[in-house]
């Protein structure tokens, strides 16, 4: 089992009591197995020393990166340097940290972190938009001193109060240093390395993952500037439109070229997607369809949707029908029912009027409608 000191026992007891929601911060040597890994980069300076590793799954596919890090974390000699392990995903997004066996984080005066402070550190490091990113190290120290000297002042306290949520009391500089390691150069190194080893298999896996950061990145790899898709990825890509993340679905839909939806089969697929989509995506799909020549297979369902839609959607449906001039016979018949509609009658008249192949009933109805209008 190797070293297993009293702190580990205490933590284990807390864990068994359910008192600690453990984010895999502590790792004892017994639980460690060694997945395949390769060294990506090593660095040693006055302020930091680390080895960056790419860990692969058993099939050799890249899984994540981690670095064994040694760094001093305070100006004074009142706290110990830090030994820790940081983990990033394949695009350099920080995921979590772990403490190697026997290592600890300390605050001023060598006071060791409490269990909840390890947890808090995980939260701080996971916040990629932390205010810590906007401060220089010197500012932090000054702010702290001011705070100590004056107490928390309501007039000047707002900013400090905000910052207080981003740090651990007594370990401000540790928070700052470690946050900048988590979201700094190593993160860039990781991303660059992944881009250097990217493959079709990786892109497929990314597209099919539930990780939106992987998905965004992969979308940008496979959707060309003109909005066309690299063929082998079509299925994986379109799956995102039906996924649980509305934001990425919208992003993808906007990015895709109208030409990708030129064929009937794709349009039917898009229409099925519409039916199961949340409202906001439905509106985006209707906008997309406005620029598409609608194939006869979905013309009728589109018109039938009018009855099931709210006024905002009805307006969009009428608008997109207004862009069509080759409506099928059943579609024309269906639309005829709206010729006398209070709100859309005029627009429906125009839509039917512009059809290249008007069916007999439409020709008659239009003529009759015109006569009636003239009589009025």
């Amino acid at each position, binding site marked *: 089992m190797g070293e297993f000191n009293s702190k580990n026992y205490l933590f284990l007891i807390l864990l068994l009591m359910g008192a600690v929601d453990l984010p895999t911060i502590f790792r004892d040597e017994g639980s460690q197995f060694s997945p395949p890994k390769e060294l990506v980069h090593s660095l040693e300076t006055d302020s930091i020393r680390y080895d960056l590793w790419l860990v692969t799954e058993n099939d050799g596919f890249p899984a994540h990166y981690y670095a064994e890090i040694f760094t001093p974390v305070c100006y004074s000699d009142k706290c110990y340097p830090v030994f820790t392990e940081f983990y990033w995903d394949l695009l350099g997004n920080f995921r979590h940290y772990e403490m190697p066996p026997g290592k600890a984080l300390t605050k001023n005066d060598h006071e060791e972190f409490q269990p909840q402070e390890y947890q808090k550190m995980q939260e701080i490091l996971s916040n990629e938009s932390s205010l810590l990113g906007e401060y220089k190290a010197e500012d932090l120290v000054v702010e702290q001193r001011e705070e100590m000297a004056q107490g928390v002042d309501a007039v000047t306290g*707002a900013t400090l109060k905000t910052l207080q949520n981003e740090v651990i009391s007594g370990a401000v500089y540790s928070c700052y240093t470690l946050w900048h390691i988590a979201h700094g150069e190593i993160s860039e190194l990781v991303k660059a390395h992944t881009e250097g080893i990217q493959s079709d298999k990786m892109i497929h896996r990314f597209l099919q993952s539930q990780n*939106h950061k992987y998905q965004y990145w992969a979308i940008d790899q496979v959707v060309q500037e003109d909005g066309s898709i690299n063929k082998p990825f079509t299925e994986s890509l379109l799956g995102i439109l039906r996924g649980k993340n509305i*934001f990425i679905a919208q992003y993808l839909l906007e990015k895709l070229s109208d030409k990708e939806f030129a064929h009937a089969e794709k349009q039917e697929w898009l229409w099925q997607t519409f039916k199961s989509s*949340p409202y906001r995506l439905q509106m985006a799909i209707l906008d997309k369809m406005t620029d598409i020549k609608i194939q006869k297979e979905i013309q009728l369902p589109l018109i039938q949707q009018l009855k099931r839609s*709210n006024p905002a959607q009805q307006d969009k449906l009428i608008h997109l029908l207004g862009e069509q001039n080759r409506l099928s016979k059943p579609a024309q018949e269906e639309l005829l029912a709206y010729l006398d509609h209070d709100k859309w009658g005029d627009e429906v008249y125009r839509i039917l009027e512009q059809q290249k192949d008007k069916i007999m009933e439409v020709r008659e109805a239009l003529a009759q409608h015109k006569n009636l209008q003239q009589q009025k």
Partner: protein
Amino acid sequence: MKKILLTLGYMMCTFWGFAQESVFIEAESFKEKGGWVIDQQSFDVLFSSYLMAHGMGRPVEDAQTTIEFSEGGNYHIWVRTKDWAPFPTGPGEFELSINGQPLETSFGVSGSADWDWYYGGEVNMKKGENAIVAEDLTGFNGRFDAIYFSTSKENLPPNDNEELLAFRKKMLNLTEDAEDVGQFDLVVVGGGMAGTTAAISAARMGLKVALIQNRPVLGGNNSSEIRVHLMGRVDQNHYPKLGRIVRELDNGDPGNGNPDGDRYGDERKLAVVQAEPNISLHLNTHVYEAEMDGNTIVAVIGRNIQTNQEYRFEGKYFSDCTGDGTLGYLAGAEFRMGRESRAQTGESLAPENADDFTLGTSNLWASLEREEPSDFPETPWAIQFSDEYHIDANKADWQWETGFGNFNTIYEAEEIRDHNLRAIFGNWSYLKNNKEDKYSHHELAWVAYIGGKRESRRLMGDHVLTQMDIQDGIIYPDGCVTATWTIDLHFPDEKNSQYFEGEEFFAATKHIKVQPYTIPLRSLYSRNIDNLFMAGRDISTTHVAFGSTRVMRTCGMMGEAVGYAAFVANKRACTPREIYTDHLDEFMGIIESPLNIYNYPSLPKN
């Protein structure tokens, strides 16, 4: 008999020419509200309150009433309602039953957000008493404004709000019948912190005061209905005796959106006001008309938000403490709304071009951790969230805010509140259904249905307070209210904007520090309405300066100052302006200490 009918809030009219019988019922006049709440926030749009089923996802108890029909028979029924979240259809579904028989159609799910009359079919009404029950089906804010019965299907009431106001008045017999409440030295409209302190300070100086508030509680944004804490300091005061009434009303700091509403001290505020014999308090009364004589307000008409009874308050002086600047607007006071341009004000924090941007409105909320897990439904009609973007919080703070020029804070108050609700419920649904580990045992404890507004109209006074006044710390001779809050101008949170451009509901801010400075009396009265004071967030400032003056302890101190000013004006029979031009020493003496009005002999010196 007429009065009884009025308090029931409905009227039966017979149009003999057409042999039609019709009955009009205001929803807010239902005798038993059950779990439904009265919402008057859109009174300035709808000219009426409405009933709303605010159950945070659990159907609320039925509302019920009885109505007398002088003639039995078949009547057509319409309900004025809307679908508040038509995306594509909303959750606010409810049913009406007449004499125990539900109407065939339910309401609130039309897919249209416009208030309109919806036909409910034909019903047989008994001669004499009939029972109506409104049953909420979802707990998600279904609402209705009024119910109308007519023997003729063609006899639909108007839907245009102004035409409908005339129709309401006719049907409720309100046309010329405002009840005279009396004559007052000072009529304070608005019972938030500023209005409450204004009324108290004037009353303690001996003035006869009417305090009119359009909610059932005092305190406004600091009440248990909105739950914003008091900010700004009273202890760095240039005039330390100003702010004492604020302290009396201050119930301690429970933070923003505390799930325990009692901590905001509604009862304390009410008790302090009720202890003042010179204050005539009128809760639940929304002022919506001003009677003018030239540039002088003679009286205001308020309408009870529940019974629709109208009341008339005559006054020598008036104070607009409405926040929205409602009274000033009704009286024709000059006002600004939105941001001035940098060229107009010379302020470095002003934008290049003037625009409609205002700070937003918050509907705060809080959850509590319970022993048992609980469910919350999926909310497809709400704003949708995902792992990529959601707000990982078990309660709200000030950042939950909608407005920012995307919506008008007065005329689109209902839309703003509803947008906030769609953000709250959508986000909560996401957390409950996707982050069970963290939220399975959390339950919504409270969601505000009254919006906490920050910015509306700013009524223009003889002085318009600016950023330079604040930052240069200029002490004008009439500088009376000390303010300490930073220039705190919210804007949409960057990430929220990225996902919800044009419909943001989450704010960020930058605090520009200030030294304690004073707000002059000339910012506390209207420049063109001769007897109108103002206190609170609608005083005469630029948008930038408003960013600092708007916090509630500071607003409360403005109220105190206005009460004292009204005393001087009343004593000297002068206008607010003439206090500044002719009686400033007397006014500032009172600001220094109200005891200065007494001619006590000075104590012998040793």
